[in-house]
Structure formats: structure tokens, C-alpha cells
């Protein structure tokens, strides 16, 4: 009985982690942009593009290059890298439009999200003649990585072992971003630019440059999250594959006060909610929807509290 319970929990925990990973990556992307004072609402679209580009690039590398034909797993890794580069380019494009041409990022995001949704399906149908889901036998999913060190630790080790590269990469990114935010000059510039761009400018910090890098990095991370969806666990592309995870990422970032650590835990929490909901659906007759609503509802609550505090602060500081 104990073993069944343990198994249930471990399984639940590891599927939580897997479900949380794309959300965490989206949350990190959103947190980075929010901290820099740029509202990036295109993460959902970027993620979807990432899914598509990753699987198509993997497919092409796997079948069109000798390297890919000989090393299927390498093709997948390269596909992911292509997706990340695509994301970085998208981020750069946003930044350029924003600083050079004063384009409203909100309206642009809506356009990008819509474009992502429609164009990926259109291309899937035109290029691969599939209308719902596309997959190809030649594509190999990312292999699970096992660390012998972790195998020796009971329970916890089992929990942390056996995920694919992107999951571990997301953890590494969280740590890297925590360090960047709290221990580096760039982290300081980032926060200053987001909170008071005039103050930053007055000491010679280039607001544009900081925001550029934030958008580029967040594009890459969002696409990495998307790649996880299409080639990380299963190997297929479905229409609207991101299905709201990008928005959950935005919510998780706000939930975590735009800190990488907070975003990680918020994303994890959302992943657990997802996993529990799925498990409930399979095991009991309890409707999973209430649990699925929780993350959205709680985000509104947290947002309200944070905004209220900010407003109180602003009125205190107003010199009039």
C-alpha cells in the first residue's frame, strides 16, 4: 500500500516537473522582460513558433544532412538550437521595432500570437499534408538523462533523475538568472531600467541596450520551452500546441514577483496543478476544472495585491 502511494506520488511529482518545464521557461522569459520594463505578451506565440521550428528543423537535419542521418539524437539537439536562434532573432526583431520605430508592443504581440497560431497550421498542412497533428518516424525525441550520482540518493534522487536536457537546462537557467539578477552589474542595470529608466539614463545606462538583451534572451527561452513540447517528450506538432502555456508563463512570472526563483516555484505550482488535474481525471470522477482554474484565479489575486502595494507606494512618493 505504501509502495503504491509512494509510486503514485513520485510519478505525480515527475509528471509535474515535466509539465512545469515549458511554463517555467515561459515564466523566466516573461520575468526577464517585466524586470526590464518591457511587457512581452508574445511569449505564447514565440513558444508556438519554437515548437514548430524545432520539429521542422529536426526533421530537415535528420533527413537532409549526413550528420543527421547518422546521429538521430544529435539532429534533435540541433533542431532545438535552431529554434532558440529563431527565438533570439524574433526577440531582436521586437526590440528593433520597439526602439527604432516606436511600435506598440502590445498590438504587435497580438499580431504575432495570431500569426503563430494560423501560420504554423497552414505550413503544416501545405508542407506535410497533415491538418491536426504531424509527426515523423525519423524524428527521435530527446533522451532522458540519468546521473549516477542521483541514483545513489533515495527517493529525492529518483525524483530528480531521468529528465531530458531541456528540463535540466531550465533548472540551470533559473540558477543563472538568480545569479545575474542579484550578483551582477547587468542585473542591477536591468532592475534600474525597469523601475526608473530616467534614473538609469542619468547615470549613463543605455535603456535600449538593456531592453534589447532582455527581449532577445526571452525569445530564446520561450522557443526552448516550445521545443520541449514538440521534441522533448513526444515527437509531434499539433495545432495550437502551446495551448495557453505562454500565458501561464506570464502569470507565473507575476505570481513570482518577476524573480527567477519565484517564477520557478510559481511555474512548478502550475505544473503540479496540471498534473493533479490530469491524474484526477484518470483516477476519479472529480472534475479537474476547478483545479485548473486555480492558477488563473490565484494570479488575479496576487496581481491585485502587488498592484495595490505599488499604487500605495506611488502616492506616498508623489511630491504633490
Amino acid at each position, binding site marked *: 500500500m505504501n509502495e503504491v502511494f509512494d509510486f503514485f506520488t513520485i510519478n505525480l511529482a515527475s509528471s509535474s516537473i515535466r509539465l512545469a518545464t515549458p511554463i517555467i521557461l515561459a515564466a523566466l522569459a516573461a520575468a526577464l522582460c517585466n524586470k526590464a520594463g518591457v511587457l512581452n505578451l508574445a511569449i505564447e506565440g514565440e513558444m508556438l513558433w519554437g515548437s514548430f521550428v524545432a520539429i521542422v528543423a529536426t526533421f530537415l537535419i535528420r533527413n537532409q544532412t549526413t550528420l543527421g542521418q547518422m546521429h538521430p539524437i544529435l539532429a534533435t539537439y540541433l533542431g532545438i538550437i535552431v529554434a532558440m536562434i529563431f527565438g533570439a532573432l524574433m526577440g531582436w526583431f521586437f526590440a528593433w521595432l520597439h526602439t527604432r520605430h516606436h*511600435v506598440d508592443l502590445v498590438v504587435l504581440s497580438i499580431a504575432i500570437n495570431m500569426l503563430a497560431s494560423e501560420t504554423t497550421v*497552414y505550413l503544416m498542412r*501545405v508542407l506535410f499534408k497533415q491538418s491536426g497533428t504531424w509527426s515523423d518516424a525519423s524524428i527521435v525525441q530527446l533522451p532522458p538523462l540519468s546521473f549516477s550520482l542521483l541514483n545513489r540518493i533515495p527517493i529525492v534522487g529518483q525524483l530528480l533523475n531521468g529528465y531530458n536536457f531541456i528540463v535540466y537546462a531550465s533548472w540551470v537557467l533559473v540558477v543563472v538568472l538568480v545569479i545575474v539578477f542579484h550578483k551582477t552589474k547587468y542585473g542591477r542595470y536591468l532592475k534600474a531600467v525597469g523601475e526608473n529608466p530616467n534614473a538609469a539614463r542619468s547615470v549613463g545606462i543605455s535603456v535600449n541596450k538593456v531592453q534589447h538583451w532582455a527581449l532577445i534572451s526571452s525569445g530564446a527561452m520561450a522557443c526552448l520551452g516550445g521545443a520541449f513540447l514538440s521534441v522533448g517528450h513526444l515527437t509531434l506538432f499539433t495545432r495550437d500546441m502551446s495551448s495557453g502555456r505562454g500565458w501561464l508563463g506570464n502569470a507565473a512570472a*507575476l505570481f513570482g514577483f518577476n524573480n527567477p526563483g519565484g517564477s520557478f516555484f510559481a511555474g512548478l505550482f502550475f505544473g503540479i496543478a496540471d498534473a493533479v488535474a490530469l491524474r484526477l481525471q484518470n483516477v476519479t470522477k472529480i472534475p479537474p*476544472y476547478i483545479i485548473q*482554474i486555480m492558477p488563473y484565479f490565484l494570479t*488575479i489575486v496576487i496581481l*491585485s495585491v502587488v*498592484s495595490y502595494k505599488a499604487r500605495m507606494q506611488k502616492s506616498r512618493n508623489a511630491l504633490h
Partner: protein
Amino acid sequence: MKNKQIGMKIVVSLSAIMLGILVSFLLIAPTGVSPYKAFGVLFSGAFGISGKVWPLWITLGQATPLILTGLAAMYGFRVGVFCIAQEGQYVFGALMAAWLGVQLQLPPWLLVPCIMIASIVIGGLYGLIPAILKVKLGVNEIISSIMLNNIATLALEYLVAFPLRADSGQKAQSAVLPQSIWLFQFVKGSRWGISFLLAILLVVITYVYIWKTPRGYELRMVGKAPLFARYGGVKSDHVILRTMFIGGGIAGLAGCLEVLGNYHRVMTGFSSGLGFDGLSVAMLGGSHPFGVLLVAILLAGIRQGAQLGLQISLKIPRELGGVLIALIIFFVAIENVYRPYVDKLYSKLVVVISKIGKENQKTREVQ
């Protein structure tokens, strides 16, 4: 001077449409079909007047919810709130109709108006939530709208799967409404019916409300010059809340009309595809009710033409319609990039036309 401004606005919008079409041409290439042929088919699939059920009627029927959600989004934009919660309001309006239509035992002539009012109220209340959050707490309305949309669609999924579930079969859907309260369709199978007329009525009412009434005046001032409004004694908070209630109510009505006139029930995935269409219509329509009307019909036409024409006749995936719409929005979004070039061209064009005009006048004088 003012004419030039309006002229420029139209020219820039047209440029966005043309650029969108150009890029679509590129995307059609891999299918092997000639782009001109494709667009011809798109047009006839959208506005054609042939066949048993004219595509034109279907397009108008499809346009109805777009007109209404477009108006709903427009109210928000006009008052300075970028609220995109129309989908959630639509869903609750539809749920209200599907539920009351089955539960309430009233004569049809009484039941239908009651349902409409209930849908408007619930849509309005749902629309107040992001408004109150913004006005009282300063919460970003875009994020709260999206959260609320998701909550609404999940609530819908829950309700049709359990409490409202009509049959224990495969599909999760609510009971079918009694035929007595189905809204009349002008052309059977076209979805074009009384709801379309209601939508047009609301377009006119909106125009009158915003430009011809004191409350509409306050609305416009709060949106365009908030400091001026405050100085003049306008209670901005009240105006914003009132306006968002109206917008939400209209979106709720949109959902109600779709249930009463079209689907006659709600089912899983009811609102899918509506997404951000409402706000696209409002944006492209210049936040003006007549613009919303035109753009809604245009957008519905593109989607319809893609479905009926491109996909069925030419085997081009119907998503191309959505792609075209997204491209137009994209080019509208980045208009600052090509606006200077359009400005130059437009000015040159104006000079040429006026020169021709003067030449004509001279010849006439000589004669």
C-alpha cells in the same frame, strides 16, 4: 488639413491590407495555385451570390458575433482601457442563454427578452471585473482579461461536462433549447437572421451613444484627454466602469444570440476560434462603430471564403484566411515603419491630382 489626415489614415490602412495580401501571395506559392485565382475564389467564397445558400448570407451570419464583440472591445479602447475579456463575457452570455432557455418556463415572447437581458447583465458584470481591478487597484487589464477568459472557458468546460450535460453520450453539451425560442434565420442554413439585424441596431445605437449623448461625450474625453475630463468635473472612474459594463454586456449578448439563433445549445469548445477576433475588429476598424461593422464583415468574409472557397474548391488550407487577417494586423501594428514612405507617395499623388485638376480647369476656361 483634416481631410488629409483622414485620407492618410485610409491610405495607411489600405497599405496594410495590400502588404498582407502580398505576403499571402508568397505563402500560396508552395501550393502551386495561382495567387490571383486563389484570391478570386476567396472573394467568391466570401461574398458570392450563387448556389443554394449564398456565401454572402453565411458571411453576414458569421459576422454577427464579430460585430458585437468588436463593439464591446471598442468601448474599452475608447475609454482608454485595453480590455480583451470579450471571450469570457461571450461565454457567460452563452451559458446564461443555454441554461435559462431550458430552465425558465415562460412564453417565448417573454422568455427571449428575459434571456437577452440576463446575458447582457452577466456579461456586463464579468466586464466590470477587469475594470474595477484597473481603476481601484491599478491591475494591468490585459493580463487580468486573459486570466478571466481562461477561467470562463474552463467554467464552460466544467458546466457542459457535468451540471448542464444533456446526454451521457460522447459529446459534452447542454440540452437543446426549445424550438419556440430559436431566433429566426432569413435564409435557412446560413446563420443569417434576426441577430444580424440586432447587431446592426447596436452599431447605430453605439454611434448615437458615443457621439450624440452627454455620457458619450464624457466617455470620449476620459479616453482621449483624462486630465481635461478630471478638471472639468467628470468622474473618470464612474465613466470607465459604466463603459466597461456596457461593453461586457454587448459581448454577453453576442454569446446569447449565437446560442439562440445558431447553435441552440452550448458544447465543449464553444468559444474556440473567437479568441481575439473581437479586438482585432475593433483595432482594424479604427475604434469606430461603422469601421467595426465593415471590418467584421470583411474578417468574417475572409475566414468564410477561406473555408468554403480555398479549402473546398482549391484544396488550400483554410488557415490561410487566418494568416491573411493576422498579417493585416501585423502590418497595421508596424505601420510606423513604412508610414514615411506612404506619406511621401500620398503627397506626390495629391500634387499630381491637383495638377491634373488645374489643367482641366484651364482647358475649360479657354473653351
